[in-house]
């Protein structure tokens, strides 16, 4: 009985795997934190949009979620490289900046073209590696700074008030860069007092619990600097329960749909739409161009190999423009114009 059951299990599994088996096609791999992250799924949508511009059957998109596990991110990429030979290109949002080093070495060894987004460790740049086509980023520090300044200026007395700080995950590069921006803003605005700072772990319900507790202690809060949309929505829930929504300013980052709506209703002061669709789409487009030989990292300009992309700061004023540009008409990108996403070059020390 047991043997029959095991045999059936194995057969069923093998059957499903035949369907999923990879063929001769090019694999466009996108390595992200998790399928549960709305922002990271924008990369995937972007890659799939790029895929549609290729002749059908040329390639397919494969997503590698690492579930916040740095070791897994690298193991998964290496497994992919080992199995596809040169038939793969890669777009990576590293779970933490230090992961880049191992990924760069793996891709270099395998001779696979790849692009990265957001963060690289100090001193490690695409210029050191032949197969690392480009590194792009919204400026994380600037984002933390921009939402802070936006928040401070939204207070009754602009530039003066008490805030709470809701960080993301501790010791996570996306978090530390945004916090750096906040610190810069705090230096420029001495009238702002920070009451407390806690880590919400990018978790909506954790942020809600913390906010509820904060409300028990602090009666006089002007705003909450929050490092992500997911957590911001949790904070808004807590505020609504006490009738304080719209009276306490809240910021977010990522630009997910519900957050944009919240800016519209006034529940959020601002958020930054990073446009993962563009980041993912062009990241993959660049890698593909290198793969097909259309461009070559050795002959690319520095500007093309390390650049900043534009994030769209969405607040009450800019919302109509955002709606016009991104919601009413979904942008269609020309992936042949590789210059498009470049806002400005990144400086390398």
């Amino acid at each position: 009985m047991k043997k029959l059951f095991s045999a059936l299990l194995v057969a069923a599994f093998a059957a499903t795997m035949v369907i999923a088996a990879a063929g001769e096609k090019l694999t466009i791999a996108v390595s992200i934190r998790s399928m549960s992250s709305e922002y990271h799924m924008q990369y995937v949508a972007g890659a799939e949009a790029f895929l549609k511009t290729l002749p059908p059957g040329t390639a397919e998109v494969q997503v590698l979620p690492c579930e916040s596990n740095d070791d897994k991110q690298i193991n998964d990429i290496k497994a992919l490289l080992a199995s596809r030979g040169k038939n793969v290109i890669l777009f990576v949002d590293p779970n933490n900046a230090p992961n880049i080093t191992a990924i760069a070495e793996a891709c270099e060894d395998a001779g696979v073209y790849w692009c990265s987004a957001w963060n690289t460790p100090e001193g490690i740049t695409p210029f050191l590696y032949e197969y690392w086509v480009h590194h792009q980023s919204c400026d994380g520090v600037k984002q933390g700074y921009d939402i802070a300044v936006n928040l401070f200026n939204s207070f009754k007395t602009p530039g003066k008030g008490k805030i709470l700080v809701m960080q993301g995950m501790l010791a996570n590069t996306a978090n530390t860069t945004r916090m750096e921006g906040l610190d810069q803003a705090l230096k420029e605005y001495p009238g702002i007092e920070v009451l407390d700072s806690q880590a919400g772990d990018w978790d909506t319900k954790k942020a809600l619990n913390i906010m509820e507790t904060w409300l028990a202690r602090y009666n006089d809060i002007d705003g909450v600097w929050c490092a992500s949309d997911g957590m911001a929505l949790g904070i808004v829930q807590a505020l609504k329960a006490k009738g304080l929504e719209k009276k306490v300013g809240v910021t977010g980052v990522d630009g997910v749909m519900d957050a944009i709506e919240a800016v519209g209703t006034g529940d959020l002061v601002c958020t930054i739409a990073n446009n993962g669709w563009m980041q993912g789409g062009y990241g993959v487009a660049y890698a593909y161009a290198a793969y097909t030989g259309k461009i070559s990292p050795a002959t690319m300009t520095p500007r093309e190999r390390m650049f900043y992309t534009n994030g769209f700061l969405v607040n009450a004023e800019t919302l109509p423009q955002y709606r016009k540009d991104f919601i009413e008409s979904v942008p269609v990108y020309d992936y042949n114009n590789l210059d498009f996403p470049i806002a400005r070059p990144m400086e390398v020390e």
Partner: protein
Amino acid sequence: MSNSAHHDLATSGRTWASGRSWLRDNMSRFISLASIVLLVIIFTVMNPNFLGAANVRNLLTDISPLLVMSCGVALVLLLGSIDLSMGSIASCSAVMLTLTFTCAGWWSYALIFLFGVFAGFLNGILHAKLKVPSFIATLSTQSIWQSAAFLLSGGQPLTLIPKNWGYVNWVRAKSIGPIPLGPIPPLFLIGLVLMIVYYVYQSRTETGKTMMALGANERAARLIGLGINRAKIVAFTFSGIGAAVAGMIFAVKLKSGIPTVGEQYNLIAIASAALGGVALTGGRGHIILVILGVGLITVIQNGMNVIAVDGFWQQIVFGLLVLAAIYMNSDRRRRDLVVK
């Protein structure tokens, strides 16, 4: 003492009345091995590159941190206890190793090893002397070491600066002196060595055998006069060492000291030990076979990427495969067996 406790205490000494009973006892182990072989065959048929040299080296490197962690926790599981602090001990070790290279050079490895001894010893004392249940004791030390990791790293994911890469480049070595290693990476060798040391200790020394006895029937072991506290403390110390070595492997492999690097691995290590035949209630298990459980989990993880399982389905397929694997490896022969 019930009959099966006698039997359990006796099997740790491993004497068989006949060849047939040896076969029966080891059947579940063969099945464990068979399930890995089966999975490997399936994945290789789907994608021949699965067994290519590059992927084999990947697999063996991937296995290494999990292997040492699982062997360590296996000793604790033999006691009938649990260790939840390994993930943060590993994270803390990774952070510390990255930091100490600058001032201690090659001695860093020894230093962090000692940290593992200390952390494990602390767990053992809290559990054995203060009589705190291992779940609570290790859950608490987990938070303590996690906080330590954050503090030491200044809340940043640390990169191993290129200046110190000289201390870690040995992981890419393809030979030891004149002996070529082939597809076997040095990190895996470390894992093997640790596993063999743990196995020898557990099966040949009095303290080691006491660990198994404690899991089978602690009251009986006490009546016999076995060294209870010593066995418990040593088991937790070995688990701490395993975690610290795993952390060092992470640091060296990823060239970074990220304070959350080990977080996810705690439960995976326990699951691997269980898949390798170590009973979670204690008293049964074989350290060498833990590698089978580790191998299973790693083959599943690795294989899913090789055959391009859709991102949305990866967690589902992983869970299903783990269920299938534990089903095939569960010991269902004995009718009076209590499974918790």
